[in-house]
């Protein structure tokens, strides 16, 4: 079985460092939402916290999966040939293959699940049958992404665009720096998903996407700082 890696070789590991930033930011916001829930006992606060924790878990999985894959690739690079920027990796070790596929798919499913929950919370939806149906669709998108990565990135981009539209409306209503930063962060995350779609044409699109994703999380961190930490 062949797998392809979207990252150019010089970017191996750097994308994982970027994702650690995402892990930290989602963990901070999820924790604060949980604290909010401990005071308010509102389901929306708890569910929002759960959404961020799920996204955090998805990035942890991505970092771990990339670690396994990149280590394997580096080993293969030493032992075999490399073909330009796109490296075909032939997996001899079944365990790493299972780990890669399992981690890879679980990361995507969890990320979409986190976005789905966030979307439901922000739109104050409570319909459980609809949620189950949407859950089914994101599971389908995850499975489909194994054969075509576009299924995942398009779905994630759509969710992020819808979430951004809610925050943009929030910004228009409240018109302050923090609501602007929150809207901007989700717009940047949406743009990052769009970049990943063009990876098939140029691997540098992955690098651009990673930088945009990092920027999105840094902006989200700034809004967190202004809201929670700044006196």
């Amino acid at each position, binding site marked *: 079985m062949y797998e392809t890696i979207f990252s150019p070789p010089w970017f191996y590991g750097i994308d994982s460092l970027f994702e650690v930033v995402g892990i930290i930011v989602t963990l901070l916001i999820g924790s604060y939402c949980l604290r*909010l829930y401990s*005071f308010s006992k509102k389901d929306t*606060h708890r569910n929002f916290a759960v959404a961020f924790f799920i996204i955090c878990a998805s990035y942890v999985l991505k970092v771990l999966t990339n670690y396994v894959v990149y280590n394997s690739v580096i080993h293969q690079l030493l032992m075999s040939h490399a073909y330009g920027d796109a490296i075909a990796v032939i997996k001899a070790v079944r365990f790493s293959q299972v780990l890669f596929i399992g981690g890879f798919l679980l990361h995507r499913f969890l990320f979409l699940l986190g976005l789905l929950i966030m979307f439901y919370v922000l739109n104050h939806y409570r319909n459980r049958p609809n949620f189950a149906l949407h859950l089914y669709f994101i599971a389908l998108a995850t499975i489909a992404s194994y054969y075509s990565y576009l299924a995942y990135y398009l779905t994630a981009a759509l969710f992020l665009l819808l979430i951004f539209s809610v925050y943009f409306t*929030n910004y228009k209503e409240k018109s302050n720096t923090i609501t602007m930063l929150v809207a901007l962060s989700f717009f940047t995350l949406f743009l990052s998903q769009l970049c990943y779609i063009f990876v098939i044409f140029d691997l540098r699109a992955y690098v651009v996407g990673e930088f945009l994703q990092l920027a999105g999380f840094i902006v989200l961190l700034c809004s967190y700082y202004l809201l*929670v930490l700044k006196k």
Partner: protein
Amino acid sequence: MNSRRTRMDIVFDMLRAIQNKGGKIKPTHLMYKANLSHSLMNSYLGELVEKGLVIGETEKTGKMLALTDKGYDFINQFKKMKEFEKAFGL
């Protein structure tokens, strides 16, 4: 028409009413400022005193309710939480 206040909103209104009066307030004034009935105010007040957010003091003018440092801190934390709620559309 405003939506019904949550429990935390009522607690915040009570503490803010005391803060706005310079940190000390008479129970009757608190009842009017926080827009509460006498029985409801007493039930919340018991909890606030128990949690150390408010203390009762006796002065020449009568019984007064004073905000503690913990109470001031709670007000700041609550304001931040409300801002977080608004910023993230919760």
